[in-house]
């Protein structure tokens, strides 16, 4: 059993590498860019202290910024997403609280839970990210269109990664 702290550090590095080396070079249809790296924030354990949640999100955001010349934009979007995470978890949890040891993944909490959880947070992240990038509301509907398309592709990658990495326990 690997220490959860170490596991998250390894995940941080792997996702960062995957994002800057491969996904940053993928432009579907010219401008749709999946941002899989936010999977790191989604998969942080429920027991993570809130301050660590914010700091870790800021760290991964600023690291992605460093490699894509978008100073601060990813960091701002990630911190906002992390800020929303506890509220979203409370909003969609059917039972009161979660059993200790349960992780926010499909295997433990089911497809429906994970889908709505990641849909809301990915949308929030992309909304902040794209509007900060444009830095004006003058192209509002076009930006919304980009947000929606990119959200769909990021979400598909996130769900796929769940089925590839976490096999069903037999």
């Amino acid at each position: 059993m690997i220490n959860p702290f170490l596991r998250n550090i390894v995940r941080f590095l792997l996702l960062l590498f995957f994002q800057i080396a491969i996904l940053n070079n993928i432009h579907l249809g010219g401008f749709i860019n999946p941002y899989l790296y936010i999977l790191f924030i989604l998969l942080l354990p429920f027991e993570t202290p809130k301050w660590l949640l914010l700091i870790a999100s800021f760290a991964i955001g600023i690291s992605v910024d460093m490699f894509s010349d978008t100073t601060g934009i990813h960091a701002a979007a990630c911190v906002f997403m992390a800020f929303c995470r506890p509220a979203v978890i409370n909003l969609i949890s059917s039972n009161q609280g979660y059993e200790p040891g349960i992780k926010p993944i499909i295997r433990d909490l089911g497809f429906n839970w994970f889908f709505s959880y990641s849909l809301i947070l990915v949308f929030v992240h992309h909304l902040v990210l794209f509007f900060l990038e444009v830095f004006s509301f003058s192209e509002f509907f076009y930006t919304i269109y980009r947000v929606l398309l990119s959200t769909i592709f990021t979400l598909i990658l996130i769900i796929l990664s769940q089925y590839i990495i976490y096999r069903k326990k037999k």
Partner: protein
Amino acid sequence: MRNFFNFLIRQYFFFLFLILEIISFVLIVQYNYYQKSSFINTTNNISGGILSSFHSISEYFSLRETNQKLAEENARLLSEAAKFYLKTDTLTHFQKDTIYNRQFVFTTAKVLSNSTNRRNNYLTLNKGSKHGISIDMGVISSNGIVGIVKEVSSHFSSVISVLNKETKISAKIRKNGQIGTVIWEGGNYRYGHLIDIPTHIKPLIGDTIITSGFSNSFPEGILIGTISDFKIEKGDNFYTITIKFLNDFNSISYVNVIKNLMKPELDELTKNNKND
């Protein structure tokens, strides 16, 4: 006072959130609106170094294309070389030329990172101030214009692409010399717009757009694109012209950075105009 601190501690999640957001916003604003060199971009040694090692792998995938482009450019340059011209006038004799004074010098650089999918796109080059690159120099590739140098460190430089909200390139229609401005309004990276062309002239689809030479970054006559569509908006005195860029910005691997040797002199001369 104690109550205040208790309040801060109870609401620490919100305040930490606020602090981190403020840091990000300061970084964004600083990077966008001042030409200050900030640490967090690809021109610093750590990320620049890592990106260049990624690039050394990925450039193998485009070797064939790059070779072809270089070969084409070689062929074009060869055909322009003086020794391949036939001397038809046997009476003239050559002597040292004092009419021409060298104005532009080109430096080749490799593109380490590039994007076309964002609203504001940047490129990173593998040459910096050590190789004589400085801010505001123009960047072109064999197919035409690419961007303008925005920031330099000792080994790397960051270039604002034509595909950026901030970029405005002074351009003209080659056929009739009408001056306009080339901008990019997002969306498809193959198409941009030429604005400020008055309605009394007649553009044609397929006309070539070149740089005007009015800015000190580019010489006159660098290719930009061709007209693919034009219309007049109701009540507007200017055409809205859609142009197709000749450069495929997504496949740029080698570029030339232009140094204007007369730039200090020109800047000195036009300095007073701006003050008025």
